[in-house]
C-alpha cells in the first residue's frame, strides 16, 4: 500500500538505466547509479546537464521515459509523488504562503493522519533542530530567505523520509549565509542520518557537504567519487575544469621510466605517475592544478618537472594567495596560484619565469578531448 511505502521503504536509492527525453532532447541519458543509505550525495553539473530532471524523477514530479527507481527493494518508479518515501526541499522553498510556519511543517504529518499531540511534538522538535522555535506562528512572507530555507528543510525532514532531495537549496542566499547553511545542512544530515541527494551547480557547495559527488554533463555522469578523489584524479577534461581549475596541456607520451610516463609538452620532457594517467593512446592532456605550480624568475633553482619560456602576463593579489597568468611560448596561458607565505618578492608583469612542479602532482587525461570542456 502507498502509505506503507512512504514510511517503510528504506535502503539504498538505486537508479537503473534511467532515461528522460523531452521531444528530441535527451535530458537524462541511461543513468545507472546507486546512492548508499545515509550518505550525503551531490549531483553536480552545469545548468541543463540533467541533474534537476533526475531529482524530479526521483521525487515523482517527472515520469521517466524508461528505466527504474528503487528504494531498497521497493520499486517507486510508477508511484505518485505522495506515495513515495521521499521529500523535497524546493529551489525557491515553495512554502505554503497561506499557512503558518507551524502548519507548513505539520502539512505532511497531517496528511498521514498523525494525532495532533504527536504532530505538535514532532514540529516542536524539528523547529528546535533548525533553531527557529520562535517563528512557529509567523507566515512565510515574514521570514528572511535564510529562515525560509531552514523551514523548507524542517518541513521535509519532519516526515522522516528515506530520502531527502535538495534542489539547489542555497541558490537564493547570499554568499555568507550560504556558507553557514552548508555547514548546518551537513550537521543536520549527520544528526538525523537520512540520505540526502543534493543537486547543485556550485562545485564548492558540493565539495563542502557531500560524501560522494556525481559530476553530470549532457545527461550522463562524467565521474563519480569522493570530493578529494574527483579533485585529485579527474578522469575527463570536463571534470578537471568544472571542479576547481586545471591547466590542461596537450602532449605526447614519449617513453617509460619505471612507474612514470615521460611526456613531451611542446619540447619539455616531464614525468608523471603511470597510475594517474587515463590516456589510451600516445596523445595525452597533462593536468596540473594551479596551486601545484611553483613559479620563479629565470635562473633560480627549479626542480621536478620544469616548463621554460613563460612570461607573466597578469597578476591578481587576493590576500592568501596571488594568482599569476603565465603566457607560454606555445601561445596558451597557464594559471598559477602562489601562497603568500614567504617574503619573496612579487614577480612583475612581463617578467620571464620558469614553472616547476613535483611529478606526482600531474594527472593525465585522454588527449582526444577538448581541453576547455567545462571551464568556467
Amino acid at each position, binding site marked *: 500500500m502507498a502509505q506503507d511505502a*512512504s514510511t517503510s521503504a528504506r535502503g539504498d536509492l538505486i537508479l537503473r538505466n534511467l532515461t528522460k527525453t523531452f521531444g528530441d532532447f535527451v535530458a537524462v541519458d541511461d543513468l545507472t547509479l546507486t546512492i548508499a543509505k545515509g550518505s550525503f550525495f551531490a549531483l553536480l553539473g552545469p545548468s541543463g546537464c540533467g541533474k534537476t530532471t533526475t531529482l524530479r524523477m526521483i*521525487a*515523482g*514530479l517527472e515520469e521517466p521515459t524508461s528505466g527504474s527507481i528503487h528504494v531498497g527493494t521497493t520499486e517507486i518508479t510508477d508511484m*505518485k*509523488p*505522495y506515495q513515495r518515501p*521521499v*521529500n*523535497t526541499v*524546493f*529551489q*525557491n522553498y*515553495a*512554502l*505554503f*504562503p*497561506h499557512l503558518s510556519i507551524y502548519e507548513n511543517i505539520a*502539512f*505532511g504529518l497531517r*496528511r*498521514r493522519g498523525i494525532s495532533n499531540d504527536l504532530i505538535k511534538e514532532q514540529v516542536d522538535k524539528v523547529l528546535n533542530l533548525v533553531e527557529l522555535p520562535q517563528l512557529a506562528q509567523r507566515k512565510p512572507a515574514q521570514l528572511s530567505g535564510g529562515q525560509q530555507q531552514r523551514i523548507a528543510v524542517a*518541513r*521535509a525532514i519532519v*516526515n522522516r523520509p528515506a530520502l531527502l532531495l535538495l534542489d539547489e537549496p542555497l541558490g537564493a542566499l547570499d554568499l555568507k549565509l550560504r556558507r553557514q547553511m552548508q555547514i548546518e545542512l551537513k550537521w543536520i544530515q549527520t544528526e538525523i542520518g537520512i540520505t540526502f541527494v543534493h543537486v547543485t551547480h556550485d562545485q564548492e557547495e558540493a565539495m563542502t557537504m557531500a560524501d560522494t559527488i556525481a559530476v553530470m554533463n549532457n545527461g550522463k555522469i562524467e565521474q563519480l567519487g569522493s570530493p578529494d578523489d574527483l579533485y585529485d584524479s579527474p578522469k575527463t577534461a570536463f571534470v578537471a575544469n568544472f571542479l576547481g581549475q586545471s591547466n590542461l596541456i596537450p602532449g605526447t607520451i614519449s617513453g617509460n621510466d619505471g612507474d612514470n610516463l615521460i611526456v613531451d609538452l611542446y619540447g619539455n620532457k616531464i614525468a608523471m605517475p603511470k597510475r594517474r594517467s587515463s590516456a589510451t593512446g600516445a596523445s595525452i592532456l597533462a593536468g596540473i592544478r594551479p596551486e601545484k605550480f611553483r613559479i620563479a624568475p629565470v635562473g633560480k633553482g627549479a626542480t621536478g618537472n620544469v616548463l621554460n619560456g613563460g612570461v607573466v602576463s597578469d597578476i591578481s593579489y587576493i590576500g592568501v594567495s596571488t594568482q599569476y597568468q603565465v603566457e607560454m611560448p606555445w601561445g596558451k596561458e597557464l594559471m598559477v596560484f602562489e601562497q603568500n607565505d614567504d617574503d619573496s618578492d612579487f614577480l612583475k608583469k612581463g617578467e620571464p619565469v620558469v614553472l616547476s612542479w613535483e611529478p606526482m602532482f600531474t594527472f593525465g587525461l585522454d588527449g582526444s578531448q577538448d581541453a576547455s570542456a567545462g571551464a568556467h
Partner: protein
Amino acid sequence: MAFLHVQKTTNKFKSLKNNRSLIPYLLLAPGLIWLSIFFIFPILQLGATSTKTPAGEIGFFEQTYRFQNYIDAFLASREQFYRSFLYATLATILALAIAYPLAYAIAFKSGRYKNILLVMVIAPFFTSFLLRTIAWKQILGEEGPVVSVLRAISIIGDTTTITATPFAVVTGLTYNFLPFMTLPLYASLERIDPRTMEAAGDLYANGLTTFRKVTLPLSMPGVVAGTLLTFIPASGDYINAAILGDPKSKMLGNVIDAYYFRIVDYPTAAALSFMLMVAILILVTLYIRRTGAEELV
C-alpha cells in the same frame, strides 16, 4: 554670501517638500471630483426623492419626508426583491462552477494557447450586453439548437420551451457575467507558484487534497472578487429578465424600471433603488466577513 546661499537652498527644499505632500491629493482629485458629481450627489438626490409624495400633476412631487414610502414599496415588490437575490445567487454559483475549471485550465494547462483562450474569454465584450442577451434568446428559442437537442434526446417534452422561464433568466445572467468571474479567478490562480502544488504532492497530499488545502485557499482572493463582480451587477440587472423572462420571473431591476419610466412614480422607484443598494451592501459585508477575505484581497 555663502550663508545666504545656504538659506536659499533650504527654502527651495522646503517648498519642494511641501509640493510633494500635495501630490497624493492632486492624484486623488480627479477621482474624488468625479465621484462627488456622479455618485454622491445623485445618491443624495435619490435619497431625497424617495421620501417625496405626488404633488398634483403627473411627474411632480413635493418633499414630505414620508418614510412610509419604503415600507409601501417593499411590501408591493417583496417577491421581486427575493427573486433578484435568488437569481443572482444561482447565477453566481453557476458562473463559479463554470469559471473555476476554465480559469484553472487557462492558468496551468493551456501552454501556448493561453493568450488565445484569454482573448476568447474577453471577446464577448466586443458586442453590446443587450445584443448578447438577444442572441442568447435566439439560442434558447424554439428554433434554436438547445431546445432541438434537448427534445431529440427527450430531456424535455415537445411542448416545453426554455425562453420566458426563470431558467432562461438565470442562464442569461450566468452567461453575461461569466467573464467577470473568470478573469479575477484566472489572475489569482496564475499567481500561484506551481511548485507549492508540487510541494503538497511531495508532502503526501493527493490531487484532491492538494486542491482543497493549497490551490483553493490560495485562489480565494479571486473567488471573492469574482463572486462579488458577478453577484452585485446580477442582483441589480433587469435586461436578462426583460428579454429572457416572463412576468413571473421579473427581478427588482424590472420593477424599478417600470416605476420610473412607465408609472412615473419616482419616489417608489427611488426607495426601491435605495433598499436594493443597502441590501447588497449588507450581504457583501457579511460575505467578506465570512470568507475572511479582508486579509486576502
